[in-house]
């Protein structure tokens, strides 16, 4: 019969060990080439910003023709659709490196404020789509006059 000597050790020691292992693991993971961590992002990734008058939605969409882009606003939902076309003629070109992708995309977002759908404008410059959505009058800040009684 084998007897195993019971080490009188602090049970917390093993926790410390796990903690060290985990911290090593995190160090290892974070030293890998960094992809910026936005999980489950749909294409195109967007930035939504606001000032007092407008809501802005921006998306980086390089290499798309304006005629292939479609922006719609229905109530408070903004839809961006489009297609990025494959540029060179594949019969003539031999690819040496391929990182960029092509295809169709569609994305809808719920806007943070009520907007005036009639006055929405969109511009496309240097591959960045900017949709400017003026806020509806009811969602603009209103000054309330306090009466002294």
């Amino acid at each position, binding site marked *: 019969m084998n007897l195993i000597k019971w080490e009188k050790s602090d049970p917390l020691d093993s926790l410390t060990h796990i903690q060290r292992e985990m911290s090593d693991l995190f160090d290892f993971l974070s*030293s890998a080439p960094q992809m910026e961590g936005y999980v489950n992002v749909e294409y195109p990734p967007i930035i939504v910003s606001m*000032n007092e008058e407008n809501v802005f939605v921006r998306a980086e969409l390089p290499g798309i023709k304006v005629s292939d882009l479609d922006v719609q606003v229905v109530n408070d939902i903004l839809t961006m659709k489009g*297609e990025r076309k494959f540029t060179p003629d594949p019969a003539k070109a031999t690819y*040496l490196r391929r990182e960029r992708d092509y295809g*169709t995309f569609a994305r809808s977002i719920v806007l943070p404020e009520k907007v005036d759908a009639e006055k929405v404008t969109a511009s496309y410059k240097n591959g960045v789509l900017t949709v400017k959505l003026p806020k509806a009058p009811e969602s603009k800040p209103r000054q309330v006059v306090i009466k002294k009684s």
Partner: protein
Amino acid sequence: MEKKELPAVGKKKISSDKCVVTGKGNWYFPLSDIYETPDNFTILIDMPGAGIENINIDLQDNELVVNGEVSQEAYTDEKVVYNEYNIGHYHRHFVISDAVNRDKIEAKMSDGVLSLVLPKAEHVKPRKIEVKAE
């Protein structure tokens, strides 16, 4: 070519453990394609947000260095409420061989995509050899 959906690819940040980043702002590694046609090599680089005036292309020895800076002026009076990507400058370099005619490199920018056309040097262009009848 069949239709497919564009996948969302995160931007690759140039981290400071690989190189020393000086200057303001983030720097990113732009995605690029390289393809070959009988007369040229073409490099396509996605640099959304970089204007023509902010793109610098340098050829030093064998290295073609492309830098594109992006201005963030538009955001000065806006408050960002939701954010899925960061804005930053772009940097990428390519090593080119003798197969490229360096005097005739051309660059074009359209819709945020920079295209560099590198003409092949005469000695690497495909040549047809005719068979003579004896």
